[in-house]
């Protein structure tokens, strides 16, 4: 594993955070930590309690990227901690366990224009509220409205901004916003007992330990909870007061409330770096976009990739206490793995028969792990420790030289034949990869989603294991419809082995077409482990396809796909195409 340690341009070992450098720095930038409500310099400390407790120079902000031209900070630094020539450093470390705790991002309410976040200065987000009420914030904890720095007397909180809203593609509950708002109202009641606080909500979810007590305290402190989400907000250009219109769903009446300030209780969204991390570690995500765990109940902190674990928000919205609990659980799981000292690798790796190998090198070309070593004129060799057992090589080898241990051609073909031995016309044959689509089928089961009974699923480790021969055999046995299913393109658990699946399917469709078999009888679908619903839907679609297939068609297919008496070696052109 390689880590890029970014240049700080200030040596944290020397810096004593005396602030002299920032005092002389001429560059003024919005302070990200304060949500842009105050400013910082190009050389700054992120916040007073930062760890490491050291200043940092943001080179992009520094004067014209040519610090020599200014150099004021270095001049005043008594510790000589500033080094303009500091470089990023690449650190390489071997690790045995990885904990993914990349957190979340806060929903940006700009798109919900009805609340006027970008139009009205006195509409703020709950994150901005945090900075305004904090003693370490830009106003030293004096809660004022942005437009005139006066203390607001009537404050409204709007819940579920960016949560539980399928219209904007965010159907999930963000988990923390109800209690965060309850907390905010208690803070206001404590600091300024004369403010009137209104909370507009659809449900208050006070489900955790001592949450209900807090909710009741807020009501006792005078907070008015109004059931209903406002339709829009108007601003009086003179007074900058805000009027919100809301249907009170308890009374059924349309209400208008004039407020000095509105706080949008914003939800949370999956972190920006999610796809980068999931690509590196082959992780899957749920339909909400958070990381998918190995099992929702029994392996809640394990990633499907062995040795990878989750902690905190990136797995699902949760509060601080739950994050801490999960971090403890994940540390325990990772610790157990590290303590074990060694792990056994499932005996599903590839083996090459030197005698049968024609030294074509196709297997080495399709191996996503580079686990097959092939030199011209020599039989290919598998490096067992590097082989993950996807089976892409086994399905690619045309000469029967590769045996996938525990998922052999013979075993899989035997399954095809056994399933389709009787009344094949009534069955949809499904190949599902272990990690995603088979698990998606499990998810459909756990969630009790119903779908037609006609499908018969067999499992391979990766969709890339499914050879042309296996699919053709299913059709020869009389299957009206065949589905090959795997992980979503970017989520393949074998790096990118499922690209081989796509190529193979393309060749199969062409082959079927040439043989006069309707290519749509063979389908390819990507179904993730979290997509039980999609699994059920695909099974329904497959059943619709099956129903269109006649007995005559099935008989014709059997004849048309009959294997030639003796299989010839494929033409070199085809072989080259397979490897490309």
């Amino acid at each position, binding site marked *: 594993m390689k*880590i890029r340690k970014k240049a700080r341009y200030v040596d944290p070992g020397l810096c004593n955070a005396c602030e002299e450098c920032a005092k002389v720095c001429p560059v003024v930038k919005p302070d990200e930590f304060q*949500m842009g409500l105050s400013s910082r310099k190009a050389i700054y400390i*992120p916040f007073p*309690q*930062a760890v*490491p407790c050291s200043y*940092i120079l943001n080179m992009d902000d520094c004067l014209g990227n040519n610090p020599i031209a200014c150099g004021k900070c270095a001049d005043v630094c008594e510790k000589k901690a500033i080094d303009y020539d500091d470089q990023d450093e690449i650190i390489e470390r071997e*690790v*045995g*366990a990885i*904990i993914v*705790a*990349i*957190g*979340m991002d806060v929903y940006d309410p700009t798109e919900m224009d009805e609340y006027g976040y970008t139009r009205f200065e006195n509409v703020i987000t709950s*994150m901005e509220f*945090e900075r305004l009420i904090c*003693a370490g*914030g830009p106003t030293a904890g004096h809660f004022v409205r942005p437009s005139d720095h006066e203390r607001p007397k009537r404050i409204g909180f709007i819940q579920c901004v960016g949560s539980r809203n399928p219209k904007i593609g965010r159907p999930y509950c963000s988990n923390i916003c109800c*209690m965060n708002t309850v*907390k905010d109202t*208690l803070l206001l009641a404590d600091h300024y007992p004369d403010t009137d606080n209104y909370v507009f909500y659809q449900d208050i979810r006070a489900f955790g330990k001592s*949450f209900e007590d807090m909710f009741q305290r807020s009501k006792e402190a005078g907070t008015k909870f109004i059931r209903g989400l406002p339709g829009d907000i108007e601003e009086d250009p003179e007074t900058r007061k805000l009027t919100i219109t809301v249907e009170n769903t308890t009374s059924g009446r349309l209400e208008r409330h004039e407020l000095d300030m509105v706080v949008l209780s914003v939800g949370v969204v999956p972190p920006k*770096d999610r796809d980068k991390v999931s690509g590196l570690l082959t992780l899957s995500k749920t339909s909400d976009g958070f990381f998918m765990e190995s099992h929702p109940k029994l392996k809640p902190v394990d990633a499907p990739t062995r040795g990878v674990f989750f*902690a*905190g*928000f990136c797995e699902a919205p949760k509060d601080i206490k739950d*994050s*801490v609990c999960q*971090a*403890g659980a994940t*540390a325990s799981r*990772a*610790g157990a793995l*590290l303590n074990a*000292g*060694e*792990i056994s*690798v499932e*005996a*599903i*790796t590839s083996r090459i028969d030197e005698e049968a190998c024609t030294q074509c090198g196709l297997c080495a070309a399709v191996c996503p792990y580079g686990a097959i070593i092939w030199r011209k004129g020599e039989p290919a060799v598998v490096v*067992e*420790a590097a082989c993950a057992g996807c089976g892409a090589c086994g399905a690619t080898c045309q000469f029967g030289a590769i045996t996938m*241990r*525990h998922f052999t051609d*013979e075993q899989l073909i*035997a399954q095809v*034949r*056994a*399933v389709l031995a009787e009344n094949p016309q009534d069955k949809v044959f499904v190949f599902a990869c272990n990690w995603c689509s088979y698990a998606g089928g*499990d998810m*459909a*089961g*756990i969630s009790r*989603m119903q*779908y037609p*009974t*006609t499908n*018969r699923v067999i499992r391979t480790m990766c969709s890339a294991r499914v050879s042309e021969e296996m699919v053709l055999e299913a059709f020869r046995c009389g299957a009206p419809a065949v589905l090959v299913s795997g992980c979503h393109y970017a989520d393949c658990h074998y790096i990118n082995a499922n690209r081989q699946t796509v190529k193979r399917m393309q060749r199969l469709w062409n082959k079927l077409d040439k043989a006069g078999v309707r290519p749509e009888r063979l389908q390819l679908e990507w179904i993730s482990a979290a997509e039980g619903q999609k699994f059920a839907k695909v099974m329904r679609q497959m059943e619709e396809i099956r129903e269109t297939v006649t007995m005559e068609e099935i008989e014709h297919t059997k004849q048309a796909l009959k294997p030639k008496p003796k299989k010839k070696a494929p033409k070199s052109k085809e072989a080259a195409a397979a490897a490309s």
Partner: protein
Amino acid sequence: MASNPKDDEIRVGVFVCDCGLNIAGAVDCGAVAEYAETLPDVACVVRNKYTCADPGQNEIKDAIRQHRLNRVVVASCTPRQHEPTFRQCVREAGMNPYLMEMANLREHCSWVHPGEWEAATGKAKDLVASAVARARLLQPQEELSVPVTKRALVIGGGVAGIEAALELGDAGHQVVLVEKQPSIGGIMAQLDKTYPTMDCSI
């Protein structure tokens, strides 16, 4: 084979799990068991209430000895849940764990086809036939052991990452904590007070 090297004969034992009513509520497990007896090389069929529970596992172990089984098919839930359980079970009875195969009658059948007694039972039979066909061709396998580097990487220095790193550190493990921002603390550091205790975030 593995359990009985002198004997070349394949002897498959099929264990059909009711899983209480999880499977037996939607699938005729008795009919599935009867059907399994007709499959090639099947030497014994046992129906269990809960195959994964100790009594169920003991029935597997007893049958392996009594019927000189050298292949086992457990027709119960998804292999993604209990494959390790049953692999361990047959290992304890002296069999190579790779000679055990599962048929997924629960997640892929009974749970998704409630109220379709006939069709679900038909599907369950096919799934067992598929598993037996595969089991007959299974070969014993040996696993490779790989050493684990005794160091953990934690990606993200928010409250979850910090806590996980500290826990691992306290347990004596080396930890590399990676944070993209200049300071650890994450979003929690930006909060003023936190619920439900109303104390400071930092």
